[in-house]
C-alpha cells in the first residue's frame, strides 16, 4: 500500500528539530516542500488547540486536499506532526507514543541542548522503522 507521510518534530520555540519523509510512495521533488509548508501552516491551529485539552494526542487537526495533519503535543510543548493520507488513527497514536519515548531518551542526555536539532542517526533509523511498522 503506497502512502505518503511527512513527519516533523517542532520544538517549543517553533524551530523544527527533526524531519523525515516516511511514506512508502515514490518521492516527488516538490512534494517534500509542499508537505513542510502545510505542516508549518498547521502550527497556529495547534497552538490554540493545545490549551483546550490536557490530552497529548490531538488527532487530526487540519486537512489539505486529501492529506490530513495529525499532531501530538508533549508536556514540554514539543510538537510531533504527521502529514498523511491514511485513516488508521490507532496506528498513528501508537507511532507517536513510541517516538515520544525515543524523544525523552534523547532529551535526558545532559549534553543535548533542548530545542536543538536531533542529529543521531540511530534515532533516525528507529523512527523510520517505527513508521514502517505503524503507518
Amino acid at each position, binding site marked *: 500500500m503506497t502512502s505518503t507521510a511527512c513527519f516533523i518534530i517542532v520544538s*517549543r520555540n517553533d524551530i523544527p528539530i527533526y524531519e523525515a519523509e516516511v511514506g512508502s510512495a515514490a518521492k516527488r521533488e516538490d512534494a517534500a516542500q509542499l508537505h513542510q509548508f502545510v505542516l508549518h501552516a498547521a502550527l497556529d491551529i495547534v497552538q490554540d488547540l*493545545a*490549551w*483546550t*485539552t*490536557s*490530552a*497529548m494526542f490531538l488527532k487530526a487537526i487540519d486537512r489539505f486536499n486529501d492529506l490530513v495533519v495529525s499532531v501530538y*503535543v*508533549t*508536556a*514540554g*510543548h514539543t510538537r510531533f506532526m504527521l502529514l498523511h493520507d491514511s485513516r488508521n488513527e490507532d496506528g498513528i497514536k501508537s507511532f507517536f*507514543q513510541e517516538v*515520544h*519515548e*525515543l*524523544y*525523552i*531518551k*534523547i*532529551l*535526558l*542526555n*545532559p549534553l543535548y541542548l*533542548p530545542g536543538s536539532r536531533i542529529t*543521531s542517526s*540511530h*534515532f533516525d533509523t*528507529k523512527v523510520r522503522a517505527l513508521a514502517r511498522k505503524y503507518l
Partner: protein
Amino acid sequence: MIGTGKIKQYANVLDKPLGKGKQEVSLSAFAFLFSELVQYNQTQVDNISELETRLEDAGYAVGARVLELLCHRDKGNRRETRLLGILSFVHSTVWKVLFGKVADSLEKGTEHEDEYMISEKELLVNRFISIPKDMGTFHCGAFVAGIVKGVLENAGFPAVVTAHFVPVEGQQRPRTTILIKFAEEVLRREARLG
C-alpha cells in the same frame, strides 16, 4: 567470568527501556557533587548574583527534563494546561521524585495576583551548606528555583522564580521560600480559559 550476567548490555541508549529507574540516590554523593558544583561556579564569577544565575541555569536544564520524564512516567501522558494544575504538579509530584517528600506548603501571594510561594523548612540541597556572613543574601536554593523555573517555562507558564530565606520566630534557622512570579501572558491566558 564473575559478574557477567543477567544485565543485558544495550548497544545504544535509545534501545534501553525507560523504566522506573532507581528510586533512591545516596544523599552524601549528591551533597558532594552539589558542593563541587557551587565551588566550581564560585571560581568562575565575580559577584553573587552571577553565581545565583549560574546555579539557576544548571537547575533549569534539570527542570526541563524532569517535566517531560515525569509527565510520561507518572501522569500517563496527560499535560497540565491550568495554573493550579502545574503548581500542584510541581509541589507534589516533582518534589516527591526529587526530594522524597512533598513540599511543605503552597501558598498564593496576598499582595499580587501573579505570585505564589512554595515553602520548605529546609531544602535538601542546603542541608550541608552554611553561608558565610559576607555573602549576605546568597541562597543555594537558586538551584531548586532553577528546577522549578525549568518545569514551569517548558510547560508554557513563563515565570521568574527566586529562593529566599524567611525568618520565622521561635525557630533558629529561617524557612526557605521559593517565590514564583508568573508573566503577564500566563494570567491573561488563565483568564481567557475561565
